[in-house]
């Protein structure tokens, strides 16, 4: 066996490793029910429940924000975000929450929100907020 072949094999093995890791590390867009059963970090696509009270009091704690969100299946869940309240949060139309479920409360470490643009119709503006520490 020539050295070139050995190198080729190692490269192939690493390339497959890279692809497998991309596949296994990638997640799916999911819902609260799954978050509850799996208990792992997960992406949930949902909407802010505008009927229910959001909680943010910077004088008490500037790093604590909580609200209620409904996932695609309509299931509702309390969400806690350890950070300052993202600006314009009330206007958001869709939320992509990254986090995990702990005792029936979803702890988000990242919120990606889509807000309707004030200028062009049918155009969404996307902003992102990160919690102060990863979960």
């Amino acid at each position: 066996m020539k050295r070139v072949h050995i190198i080729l094999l190692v490269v192939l093995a690493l390339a497959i490793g890279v692809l497998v890791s991309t596949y296994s590390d990638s997640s799916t867009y999911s819902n609260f029910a799954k978050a509850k059963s799996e208990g792992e970090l997960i992406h949930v696509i949902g909407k802010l429940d505008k009927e229910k009270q959001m909680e943010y009091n910077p004088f008490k704690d500037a790093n604590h924000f909580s609200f209620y969100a409904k996932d695609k299946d309509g299931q509702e869940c309390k969400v806690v975000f350890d950070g300052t309240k993202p600006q314009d949060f009330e206007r958001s139309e869709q939320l992509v929450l990254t986090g995990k479920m702990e005792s029936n409360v979803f702890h988000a470490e990242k919120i990606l929100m889509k807000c309707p643009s004030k200028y062009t119709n049918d155009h969404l503006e996307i902003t992102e907020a990160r919690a102060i520490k990863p979960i």
Partner: protein
Amino acid sequence: MQFTGEHLWLGKLGQFFVVFSFGMAILTTLSYYFSVREELDPNRKGNFSWKLLARSAFLLHAISLVGIIACMFTLIYNHYFEYHYAWEHSSRALPTHFIISCFWEGQEGSFLLWGFWQIVLGSILIWKAKDWESGVMTVIGLSQVFVCSILLGVSIFGFQVGSSPFILTRMVMTEAPIFKDPNYLSNFLTDGRGLNPLLQNYWMVIHPPTLFLGFASMIVPFAYAITGLWTSRVKEWISPALPWALFAVMVLGTGIVMGSAWAYEALNFGGFWQWDPVENASILPWLILVAAVHVMISYKSSGQSYITATILVLSSFILVEYASYLTRSGVLQNASVHAFTDLGMKYQLIFFILVFLGISLYFMVSRWKSLPSSPKEESLYSREFWMFIGSIVLTLSCLQIMATTSIPVFNEIFHTQKAPPVDLVGHYNKWQILFVFTIIILSAFSQFLKYQKTNTRVFFLQLGIYLVVSILITVGLVYLTHTGFNTMFVLLDFACTFSIVSNARILADAFNGKMKLAGSAIAHIGFALLILGALVAASTRKVISVNTTGLSYGPSWTTKNAQENILIYKGEPYQMSNYKVTYLSDSVSGPDTYYKINYQKIDPTNGRSIENFDLYPNAQINEKMGGLIASPSTRHYWFQDIYTHISEVPGAKEREASQEDSTYTINSYQVKPGQKIEVNKTEITVSELVRNAQVKDIAINPEKNDLAVGLKLNLESEKGKFTTEPIFLIKNLNILPIETKVDELGMKFRFTKIIPETGSFELQVLSKKPGKRDWVIMKAMIFPYINFLWIGTLIMVIGFLFSIFRRNNEWVHSQSKGSKKKNKTPIPA
């Protein structure tokens, strides 16, 4: 309908330039193509009519492209908001130096920038490339055709091609009711939407042009490779392409680091690299071209790895196109907040990739048999073998980033719903730390090897010495930087040290006469420093704004929630780590509010202040851009940075309310000069009466019984000493007291009455009621050793400059030798 106030001629002129430059780009490409045919034809008559035509077409193309830029600049500079580009990306309030940034905020402008650089590069090549001109310029011309097609904005067979920068606002928003008014410009569209405040940063003036120069120059090595294969000069293209490849690597690398400098200085996530898809897209072609440069050099010195070099050079430019597809087609919409939105040119960009991929494949396959293969297997103790391994590792590193960044592309193709890894940074780091470790180790020990064959005894001896030295230095370094908590970081510290020490040895040799070795040694040292700085800064950065009040925060609060944002009240010192921070005051400049935050470090033994400085982080409440936009302020030291940013400020209503009198307690006093009073722990001394006081912007006319008298006050409290001078003003027989404000004390002063009977004056002191104070929420971080990252980049650039000159000289030298030899047969076909 007839609209008034529009400047339609400018758009028409601009659109003419767009179409004309597109046409001329096609003509340039075609005539250069025939010029190559003409040069390849053994029976040619010796006139270069096609080349002459091609050069003229290129000149006209260049002029009209500069014309487009001039038109766009005119409409942005003159605030012609009837044009959508000006309305969307600029506003009247914008300072002039940022008008230039408006240019590349939009998609069309950034493509124009790309086209502009290709013109500059094309002109240099026409001047310098000699007998490579026709082939190389055919490829550049073709790329220019695609870049111009993106600005076309015309419909061909019902298919929208490009998006014109000269489209009118009323054409984009056809539904908006304001366009029913013929005077919409003077009545409604009086100001533009403005430039995103995050882009209002000096880095954004230089980062995009540098990045695009990098992208644009990557076509040059690609064009040389294609020309080499096309005109059967399969071996010769490497020499002239090498300095260009080095140039592209240098400029793109600088552009990428400038982007992270911008992220570090202007964005408030507190970091310089986020593995964001847009960042990743720019690094893909860079990694591949770095790999290509190494095998090109290896081929020149040893005749090995020709095919690898060619494939890598060809892939690097295709990756540039793939990067622009990723960032500009809207495919990343769900994954990145930085990507451009879709302008409907997805298919155009895919077509762009396919054409260049097709050309590359065609020439690789059709010339396959004539490509030089490696003469024999490289020795294990040869430099070229390890350079080849290094290139493979760089390629794998690129592949890993590409695979994960392309998840949205896979979703698009296979209609899946995969999301990027939840722990994105962790996912990339676990692979890339491994790759970067290998690369740096390779860049160190291959310096002890020679091309072809090395004396193994000498090699192991030298290697051993430098290994021991590096280990000793690493131990010291780990101890100093406190990175000992993670084995991987210790190993990386070691790798970087090893590389710096080994390359320093080469550099020492270089100064002893072997100057041509200096470039690579310097560049490798710079790279190792860059990685070391990035690594230490990212791994040991420390949040120092930790809340220490110890309050309880309700049931959903768990202990692991460290409190990194702190709320501080104006004028109230707050102990934060080693520093006492005080929010002193704020000042408004344009749309920004700058918050003056004072930092004081107190020596605990004697209570004296050993350090005292102010930082001015700013924030603006920007309704248009969706809320609070904050930019940090940083105190730079040699070995660390202190970084502060505002996370939250009171809303506009709350701010206004806090300025009203109802939030103040008012006390009136009758005072005489020399008298002292005490209000709210502040001692106020009335020092003197100032006759003929000056009032800004108000003319005092004594003949009309105007009067302005000031009362000079000295204030002393534990917050410091201040002076202020409220003024009693009579203007046009009205009494208008002019109040003064001392933010630090939360006090206002008014001089309201002169009482001649007693010779005294009435002074009102307004002090802010507690609870209604101004506040900000801020976060502060320390980034240790981040300067290594910037210094490393600078050193790397210097190294590349050395290498570019060396490789360029080599080529020019070989040309002059070659032309003497080949004087009688000038066709190198």
